[in-house]
């Protein structure tokens, strides 16, 4: 590029200079964007200024990126960091008690600061906690053993699980139910009790909480007919043995989708003073929308083709727990979803 190509744009449209730069950076509103485009069509000086600036920025950007890419590979940072860090030792309850007792001892026996009242209150708290544990008021929390990537991992009930792998992840619960969680799904296993008596409340024994994201679930039938429920922000799906799909979104307007491949699922809407449920049978789905505290539960309708394909693929892939086998159908689902976006914007019948 030659120096002579730089025109003297000053004195022509200096007031447009900042607007044009914001337009180049995609940092202006659609209205202003249109205004700048109209001006660029009209004004030769500004159009030339824009062309030159754009080329100049591209040249600089290319040279800087070239320097950075040639010198190093930032992707190796994660490997290097993970190689160097030790595991955190979680603080156990007994360690906390020890800390409190030593703090009390410090205040009690330190010559300079004998805060007897503070030491006494800490000791009383510790003694109260110990007593509560002894009499069984504070129950020991039993871990749930799940299988992730071939390894048995004990997790605490309600401990959040976040999926960050592109291909998602297969997780097996202690009751042999299989979950496929897609990327960016955030959920927890609240309970998975296989020893519950038949008379107990069905919804409390096997339950997941889905905060956001998408899950495909293959629920194994329980001998004692204990139900399996998935709790979403605005809906709850309860099943006894089926393959189904649940997705939910976060934000002020939450949308939950439930689709069934095989079996039946009871879907209830959740919200303040909101009552309503529907039963989904084979190859049916429903949508629950909530906005400003009002929850709308749509009547069952045929399962969307993309979800049907997804659940079929899940049915195949769950046998060898291969998340990679889900990748082609995930891409396809994303594309189909974009196409059917207009359809989902239709008002929902009650």
């Amino acid at each position: 590029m030659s120096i002579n190509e730089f025109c003297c744009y000053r004195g022509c449209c200096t007031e447009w200079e900042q607007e044009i730069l914001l337009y180049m950076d995609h940092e202006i509103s659609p209205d202003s964007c249109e205004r700048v485009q109209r001006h660029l069509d009209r004004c030769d000086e500004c159009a030339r200024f824009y062309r030159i600036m754009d080329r100049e920025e591209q040249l600089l950007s290319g040279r800087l990126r070239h320097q950075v890419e040639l010198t190093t590979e930032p992707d190796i940072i994660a490997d290097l960091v993970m190689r160097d860090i030790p595991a955190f030792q979680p603080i156990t309850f007994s360690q906390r008690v020890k800390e409190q007792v030593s703090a009390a001892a410090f205040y009690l026996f330190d010559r300079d600061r004998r805060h007897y009242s503070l030491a006494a209150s800490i000791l009383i708290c510790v003694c109260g906690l110990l007593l509560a544990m002894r009499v069984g008021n504070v129950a020991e929390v039993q871990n749930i053993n799940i299988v992730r990537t071939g390894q048995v991992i004990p997790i605490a009930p309600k401990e959040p699980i976040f999926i960050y792998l592109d291909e998602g992840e297969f997780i097996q619960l202690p009751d042999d139910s299989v979950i496929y969680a897609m990327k960016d799904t955030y959920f927890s296993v609240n309970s998975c009790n296989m020893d519950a008596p038949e008379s107990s409340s069905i919804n409390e024994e096997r339950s997941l909480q889905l905060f956001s994201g998408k899950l495909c679930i293959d629920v194994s039938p329980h001998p004692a007919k204990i139900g399996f429920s998935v709790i979403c922000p605005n809906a709850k799906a309860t099943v006894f043995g089926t393959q189904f799909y649940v997705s939910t979104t976060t934000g002020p307007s939450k949308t939950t989708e439930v689709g069934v491949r095989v079996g039946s699922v009871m879907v209830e809407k959740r919200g303040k003073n909101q009552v309503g449920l529907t039963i989904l049978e084979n190859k049916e789905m429903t949508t629950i929308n909530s906005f400003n505290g009002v929850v709308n539960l749509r009547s069952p309708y045929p399962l969307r083709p993309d979800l049907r394909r997804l659940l079929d693929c899940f049915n195949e892939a769950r046998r060898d727990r291969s998340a990679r086998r889900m990748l082609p159908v995930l891409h396809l689902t994303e594309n189909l979803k974009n196409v059917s976006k207009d359809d989902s914007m239709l008002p929902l019948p009650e």
Partner: protein
Amino acid sequence: MTKNAEATLVSQVLNGRRECYRPLVEKYQMKIYLLACSMLGNPSEAQDIAQETFLVAYKSLNQLKDQTKFGSWLFGITRNLCYSAMRRQKIKTEPIDSVAYQDIPNVVPMRPSEENGVDILSILMKRLDDLPEKYRVLLRLKYLEDYSYQEISEMLDIPVDLVRSRLFEGRRLLREDLDNVRRIANEH
């Protein structure tokens, strides 16, 4: 990955699940690396700083009060490490009205022609390196990865309006130099 998901991962790391730190590193490694690159101008040193940032953050993770602000906290650590590195190496940043901007010693015709053509890209690169730090870092971040004003504001912990005005000012300074270069080239 949302802020809440990040907070969840941080709490899982604090509960002893070391492997949960990887997605956090993977999410921020590029931004941290480019921020260090922009501040130091040396990619290999920036990689060391990026690595050190994640190690320091891991060791002091229990000091993070608001776990949803993990990203901002990480950028803060990077900036501090970069400033320390700059102090160690006595990297100086010259003020805008220094001599380097008044006379332009590096205007050498690369391809002498009837158009008085010069390598504008080399001049731009030199001018960019000589800009005061507050403009240089911003412009480098913009050119390296085309980050939005909001992202740059988070990385440098400055208001979005300030990002906008500094980018505008930085670009104006680069162009002013070019006007001078053009004038000198024409005089030759």
